[in-house]
């Protein structure tokens, strides 16, 4: 198993990463020939440019906010699903992931549509469900939570489902009231799921570009949008540099996961 896996991993992951690292240090561009290639830290100035800093700040703030909201809401939903007397919980979970079956861009575009002043939903309902928030930070936050919270719900639910019910009974038996039982037994034992879920929400939010672009109508710029722009305008050096920085965030997060979840139980 290992050999084909390693080959694929090197072709599809390691070589591109090395290439990006190289590009971010070099002066490679369409007008530079191979003989003139040099390596320098010149592109790193970009990281201190205010557009980059603001984009990073936006990405971080929205990623943190999305993660927190997804955690609170998602944990609640996962816990309710776990407690529900409904026999077929798989169906409930299917409802959770159902929106994911449609294309992200389409889904986001339609979300932007019903968030704008005149839309089909308003015609049907007779009032504007979302108000007129398209283009604001609220629209972006809603879109992000709407898109990524299912990951939190699923991983928290998986962790909750693994908790032996006898442990909860043992806690009650030892004199804990239900609320204390939750904080002392259920929550600590599902924390791995929270960490995994948080990272699955945080990373795509941090690196994403489609949702903020569509829902803020270009007003709120994430770091992903800048990377996209750089590549569209064939400024590969800058694009690669920012992508590598994002990559370090991802690596850091994965280290965090492995610290909390050594057996990889809650990861799919």
């Amino acid at each position, binding site marked *: 198993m290992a050999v084909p896996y390693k080959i694929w991993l090197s072709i599809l992951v390691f070589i591109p990463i090395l290439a990006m690292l190289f590009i971010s240090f070099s002066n490679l561009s369409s007008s530079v020939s191979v003989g003139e290639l040099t390596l320098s830290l010149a592109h790193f100035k970009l990281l201190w440019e205010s557009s980059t800093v603001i984009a990073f700040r936006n990405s971080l703030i929205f990623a943190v906010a999305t993660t927190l909201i997804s955690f609170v809401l998602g944990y609640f939903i996962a816990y309710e699903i776990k407690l529900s007397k409904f026999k077929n919980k798989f169906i409930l979970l299917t409802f959770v992931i159902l929106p994911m079956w449609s294309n992200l861009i389409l889904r986001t575009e339609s979300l932007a549509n019903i968030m704008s002043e005149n839309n089909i939903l308003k015609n049907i309902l007779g009032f504007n469900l979302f108000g007129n928030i398209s283009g604001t930070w609220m629209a972006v936050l809603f879109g992000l939570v709407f898109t990524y919270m299912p990951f939190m719900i699923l991983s928290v639910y998986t962790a909750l489902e693994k908790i*032996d019910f*006898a*442990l909860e*009974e*043992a*806690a*009650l*038996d*030892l*004199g*804990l*009231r239900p609320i*204390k039982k939750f904080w*002392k*037994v259920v929550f*600590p*034992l599902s924390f791995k799921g929270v960490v995994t879920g948080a990272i699955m929400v945080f990373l795509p939010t941090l690196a994403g570009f489609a949702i903020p672009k569509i829902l803020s109508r270009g007003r709120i710029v994430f770091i992903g949008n800048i990377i996209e722009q750089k590549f569209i305008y064939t400024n590969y050096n800058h694009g690669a540099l920012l992508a590598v920085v994002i990559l370090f965030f991802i690596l850091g997060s994965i280290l965090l996961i492995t610290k909390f979840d050594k057996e990889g139980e809650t990861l799919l």
Partner: protein
Amino acid sequence: MENQHALIELKNISKSYDDELVVKNVNLTIYRNEFLTLLGPSGCGKTTILRMIAGFIKPDEGDIIINGKVFNDLPPYARPIHTVFQKYALFPHLNVIDNVAFGLNNRSWEYLENFYGQEKIAAEIKELSKKKEVSAKKAIKSLIYKDSVQALKLVKLDGFIKRKVDQLSGGQQQRVALARALVNKPEILLLDEPLAALDLKLRQNMQYELKEMQRTLGITFLFVTHDQEEAMTMSDRIVVMKEGVIQQLGAPKSIYNEPINRYVANFIGETNILPGRYVKKDLVNFLGVDFKCMGYNFNDGEDVDVVIRPEDFDVVDVEKAKLVGEVVFSLFKGVHNEYEVLVKGEKLLVHTYESYEVGQPIGLTIDPYEIHMMKVETGE
């Protein structure tokens, strides 16, 4: 027993799941400091009774009375009862000592003040303050720690304080579960087949230790098992159950020697049940022979079931024997030999120290006091 103080009373308890009655109108009194075992095959309702006493489920009908108070609607956390679960249910996110201290650590201040008493707390503050000033809270924490260590000592695990629970063997986890319950000084300890997952040797050791603990700590143990040997070894009294109904309640010896019906006789150890007739007072006829018997009163000429334990046969010379049969199967069991003896078409199970070969004739007699009789059950 009867004049002792009743600790738990179950009055006409019934419980059904999905229209299936699993506990049927059970009445049971459990006395202080006794070791009572609920014995029966799986699905006989014994665990359900235990869980109702613990408060995890509510009876559909009837009352659970503890110390004279009706406990039906009290949640588990408000009962002076702790449970040792079948699969131990130790908290995997805590180490051994934190598991043991879990109950006390999460109690309210008032509860702990009550639990330890002002005097003990004051003494602990004094003791600790020799080194540096401490608050009452610190003193209680220290008392809890000491108690937890003490409980672990009791189960011989005081060397494992900081160990993670998943690094312990099954037997050790069992002991931690026991310590976790005992540290709270419950009036009643419920044990739900706690030894079922242990191997034979360990199980036997734990049986003695549990009995010993119950005796020294003076806690009422309510033990649930399907293993009749386990029940025999440890219990003061045994409740034999079948399909949600109590069949017989009594000391191990009386249940073993005087089973009330076929079911109990078969469930408690190996036995021979023979159709017989109560000829007249102290005379019973079975296998075509009259035997003297004692202590039973039936109508003259009434059909009875005669119960004879395999070890109650006396093996004698053929000439002196009341029953003569042929050994058809033999098994060496270490301490004794087990034979199947064919007597007048009935196969009898006989335990004896003498050795016989298959095919040899064998003579048997039975002492009058070893002959037990039951009413013939109809409808079975």
